[in-house]
């Protein structure tokens, strides 16, 4: 297939076109991804998530600049997938992440693609995984994935990336925000951006506190006696556990980026030495297969049930003649549940 060969040979227009096909779900795109899949697996996938306005785009920009010219290292090829929300009303979108990435312009070793979420929840688009595969096959070493500005439960990124950065800024919330379930739990690395702002100390303390609850280093015994958890579990405890570091950055000035990149590399090494890398790859691919299955099963079912029957079932719900679960059972039984 021509498109596949062009993408593999580094043709940027071919890659751009493939990404569009992947996004619109064209059969040609599906076939190209199938052919490209054996060429994937070489890229390091780094997710960047956090609330709107925390500086994700600026941070991605700085990380990309860093990987293009790592001090004392070889330049890496960098792809960026920047996801922004689609309007739930019109389906339109304004994708503005490139504004913060103008310094990357003109560099052949960087490819930036903006993607609208198109109704997907979870902070990514349905086509994100496919787009990442396209970048991976095209030979990009580092693939930075920037999510939609996320609230508390947009955690899909952790199922796509090898390393997930959660970006926080001073002044966003108190320490109860920090112990809530959700986005902070998925962090492999916590980034405290805009660290030149007031409140950075207390923000870091809140994050530290949250980490200590999750990864206690001391166990409190009766009468306030404490016991070292690592010692209790033996010396190996440290090697098979990753405790997310907190990195302070000022992305607009490039401060803290080298240290952040060191943490990312540390996490990669941890994944490899602990055997977690393979585990994450498996979990990533399992997640993708399950998402595809859901979509396929849903559309297969949709094609078998008539709109009139579906409408009738919905009417019966509104009139309280049946419950949602009864409706599902009836729709599945009558129409393709066992086909």
């Amino acid at each position, binding site marked *: 297939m021509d498109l596949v060969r062009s993408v593999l040979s580094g043709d940027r227009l071919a890659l751009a076109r493939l*990404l569009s096909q992947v996004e*619109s*779900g064209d059969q040609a795109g599906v076939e190209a991804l199938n052919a490209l899949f054996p060429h994937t697996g070489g890229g390091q996938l780094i997710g960047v998530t956090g609330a709107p306005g925390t500086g994700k785009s600026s941070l991605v920009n700085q990380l990309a600049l860093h990987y293009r010219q790592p001090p004392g290292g070889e330049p890496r090829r960098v792809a960026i997938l920047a996801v922004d929300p689609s309007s739930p009303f*019109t389906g339109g*979108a304004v994708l*503005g992440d490139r*504004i913060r990435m103008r310094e990357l312009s*003109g560099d052949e070793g960087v490819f930036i693609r*903006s993607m609208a979420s198109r109704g997907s929840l979870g902070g990514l688009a349905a086509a994100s995984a496919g787009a990442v595969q396209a970048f991976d096959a095209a030979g990009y070493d580092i693939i930075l994935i920037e999510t939609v500005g996320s609230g508390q439960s947009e955690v899909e990124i952790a199922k796509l990336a090898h390393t997930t950065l959660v970006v926080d800024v001073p002044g966003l919330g108190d320490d109860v925000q920090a112990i809530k379930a959700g986005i902070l739990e998925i962090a492999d690395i916590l980034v405290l951006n805009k660290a030149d702002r007031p409140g950075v100390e207390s923000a870091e303390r809140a994050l530290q506190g949250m980490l200590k609850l999750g990864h206690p280093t001391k166990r409190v015994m009766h009468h306030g006696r404490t016991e070292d958890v690592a010692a209790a579990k033996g010396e190996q405890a440290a090697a098979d556990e990753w405790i997310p570091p907190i990195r302070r950055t000022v992305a607009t000035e490039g401060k803290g980026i080298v240290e952040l990149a060191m943490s990312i590399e540390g996490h990669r090494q941890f994944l490899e030495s602990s055997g977690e890398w393979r585990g994450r790859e498996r979990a990533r691919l399992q997640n993708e297969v399950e998402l595809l299955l859901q979509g396929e099963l849903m559309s297969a079912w949709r094609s078998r049930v008539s709109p009139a029957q579906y409408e009738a079932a919905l009417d019966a719900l509104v009139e309280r003649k049946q419950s949602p679960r009864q409706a599902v059972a009836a729709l599945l039984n009558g129409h393709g549940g066992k086909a």
Partner: protein
Amino acid sequence: MAEKKIRVLVAKPGLDGHDRGAKVIARALRDAGMEVIYTGLRQTPEMIAEAALQEDVDAVGLSILSGAHMALVPRVLDLLRANGQDKVRVFVGGIIPDEDVTKLQAAGVAGVYGPGSPTQKIIDDIRATVTGA
């Protein structure tokens, strides 16, 4: 899965620092259901062509108020062609004298819009040229 969305790059080439018009258009195209990639101020023609390529857009909208349109627009058109993106339609908005409008259209610009142009006309023109192409 999803249908094909119209993707438009809205860019501000040149040195004038006024992007209200570009933002109004970006918003209007969004409300018309298009995906708008907005790149911000002071873009060179090279930056615009590169973004258009990576984003695989159907159309490029250039907002120019500086008077440099006769230098900037043909350069963008040339770079798009050089990248193999000759199907990408280019629209120009801003303060463009009448005699330049004809020149730009002759050079391959699909539409030129002065101040006060109804946004609905721009939306309709983009949709017509992109889906008709």
